[in-house]
């Protein structure tokens, strides 16, 4: 699998040229070298008829990730899902949109349940069947955090995927520990002296994952499919605990236009607020470089959850504060260095 992904990366540089370098597919390269999503017979692990909102980033991210995992394992994937949007909009009785074996247990235990699945497969002599746990930022960075850390620390053979839309959207957009500073949510209204979410210290679960020293940790976004697929395939080529944190915009919770989902994911990376990086065995090994840097304001402006920042002078300072956070990321993950540098 690794070979395939490396060649895919190579072809990006060698053959894609101007047209198709960043697009999903490219008629000029062989099917094998094209993105999984470009394939006419991709598995569509998450199929039509689900009840996600128009322009749902999570629905997109989940199909991207699961389809890539399906290709990487020849379809031998069992998915465990934490409670949340993804669970509710994909499996309301009597309809499921999942084409893979799929299990929903609770909000906070996806990582542990997946550990159980993996253990069962080992003991049943079917190690080729791999377990993937998935959840939103609430189920991952908040309520599911204990089970997640336990799974990491035991280095169980589970790929945990967090679809981060930066709040509890399923329950009506309440703040989570992944909600960015200043963002308006139902529980951090744009009122009072400190409108929106507090400027806390933040909580980078990817970094916490790295601190566990697990074999593989990566962040990705729905705006960079090739990068996302490569990371999923790489992850599926590794045994032990792996963590993939995917940034997935939410039109409902962010107050953005449904067609802007991918555009916003792109801007989040280009402004430095969402660093895309990789780490192996506790060491950051590389980052996706910013291609056309933009000020954070360009990313914040189209989102109603940040509207209050643009209506007052105090707002300007908060934007500056957010820019400072972006600049820190840029420095820490070398986001403006030339390609190839760590």
């Amino acid at each position: 699998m690794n070979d395939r992904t490396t060649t895919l990366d190579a072809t990006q540089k060698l053959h894609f040229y101007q047209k198709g370098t960043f697009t999903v597919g490219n008629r000029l390269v062989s099917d094998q070298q094209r993105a999984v999503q470009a394939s006419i017979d991709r598995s569509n692990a998450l199929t039509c008829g689900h009840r996600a909102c128009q322009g749902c980033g999570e629905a997109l991210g989940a199909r991207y990730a699961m389809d890539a995992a399906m290709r990487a394992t020849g379809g031998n994937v069992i998915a465990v899902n934490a409670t949340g949007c993804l669970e509710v909009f994909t499996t309301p009785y009597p309809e499921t949109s999942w084409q893979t074996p799929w299990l929903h247990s609770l909000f906070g235990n996806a990582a542990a349940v997946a550990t159980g699945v993996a253990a069962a497969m080992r003991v049943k002599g079917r190690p080729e069947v791999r377990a993937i746990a998935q959840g939103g930022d609430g189920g991952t960075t908040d309520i599911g955090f204990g089970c997640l850390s336990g799974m990491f620390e035991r280095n169980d053979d589970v790929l945990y995927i967090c679809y981060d839309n930066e709040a509890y959207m399923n329950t009506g957009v309440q703040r989570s520990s992944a909600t960015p500073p200043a963002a308006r949510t139902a529980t951090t209204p744009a009122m009072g002296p400190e409108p929106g979410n507090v400027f806390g210290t933040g909580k980078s679960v990817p970094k916490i994952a790295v601190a566990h020293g697990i074999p593989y940790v990566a962040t990705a976004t729905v705006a960079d499919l090739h990068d996302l697929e490569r990371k999923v395939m790489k992850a599926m080529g590794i045994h032990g605990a792996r963590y993939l944190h995917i940034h997935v915009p939410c039109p409902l919770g962010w107050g953005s236009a449904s067609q802007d989902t991918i555009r916003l994911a792109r801007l989040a990376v280009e402004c430095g607020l969402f660093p895309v990086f990789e780490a192996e065995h506790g060491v950051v090994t590389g980052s996706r470089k910013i291609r056309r840097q933009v000020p954070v304001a360009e990313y914040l402006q189209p989102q109603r959850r940040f509207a209050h920042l643009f209506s007052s002078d105090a707002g300007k300072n908060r934007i500056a504060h957010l820019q400072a956070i972006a600049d820190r990321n840029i420095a820490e993950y070398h986001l403006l260095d030339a390609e190839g540098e760590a």
Partner: protein
Amino acid sequence: MLKQIEGSRAMAEAIGLCRPEVICAYPITPQTHIVEGLGEMVRTGEISKCEFINVESEFAALSVAIGASAAGARAYTATASQGLLYMAEAVYNASGLGLPIVMTLGNRAIGAPINIWNDHSDAMAVADSGWMQLFAETNQEAADLHIQAFRLAEELSMPVMVCVDGFILTHAVERVDIPEQADVDAYLPPYEPVQVLDPQDPISIGAMVGPEAFTEVRYLQHYKQTLALRLIPEYAAAFKKQFGRDSGGLLRSYRCEDAELIVVAMGSVNGTIKDTIDEMRADGLSVGLVTLVSFRPFPTAALREKLVRALNVVVIEKSLAVGMGGPLANNVDLALRNVAGAPQVHSVIAGLGGRPITKTSLHRVLRGAFVQPWEGSHFLDLNEKIVAKELHYVRKVRRSGPTAENLLRRLGQAEKAAV
């Protein structure tokens, strides 16, 4: 093979003979020795083809079991007290998903005040979670019940909790006949799941179910437990056939024929009660005992059949539903509901937080029942003097402080006074 052995170890060996495939361990007194024993047996290979997983919490312990069971493995874990409450959400989930997990519950009180000793508060806290609950009277039965539990759970695709009195059984070293592997294999068929996560035949398990179907799901769960009322005696009979001894079943009676007064109890206390009854019978008192093995499903009909001819029924239980009384007594009332000329039911709350239940105390309360049956709950060996003092003090002083500490202080004073 007969062994003089600690209860926990005996259970561990019995569970091992059931060929569990995934065992999740998290330490909590008093079940700890069971998973310790199992861990050792997995390491030494006594249990083969088994994943032993040390998890970070009871919540994770049962969650791992849920995943393993849904993926087709025979899953086991054990817990007690606070641990059971910490995994409560998963307890309901396991039964809701119909996963045949077997879990040992080393019965123990629930804090605060923190207390590690035995009573049945933990079992009662999740009595209505959809799990079947079987109470062991002896360590022999504790061991045997696990073997029956796996068969029952997997037949109905419904989890089973084997309730064993903490310390009193788990830590008691006594004679236990550990079955032979061949017998267990003959009795317990390999796990055939009704549904399993398999890439060859994918399904989605754990859908969101709305008002249109939720009642039906719940009803079917309830219906399964009514089926268990038939299966439990059946499997107990089969067990006797295979292993040559009585173990399990819905309930057992002792000297009940013609008894005017019948005691109902669960767990290890039944032994003490039997001795007490023998002595009372010797004194010509017409008293008998019904030992309830299955609390869930609750054997309403079988119990009614045992109790209906008595004049009085005394329910002795190690649990208190604060503000209501004895939950077991309440369930016994259910068995006699709408029965013409049904016996009077009297409730005894005993052995909370590990307080010993002695023959002396039992004689006092049971003989009392002949002379002067009571209404409401009788708290066995309640230190009324101290309670009265505390109540008086609390009435006087607004900031009266923590009751538990106050009581301990008073007990100390009382002892000094005695010297």
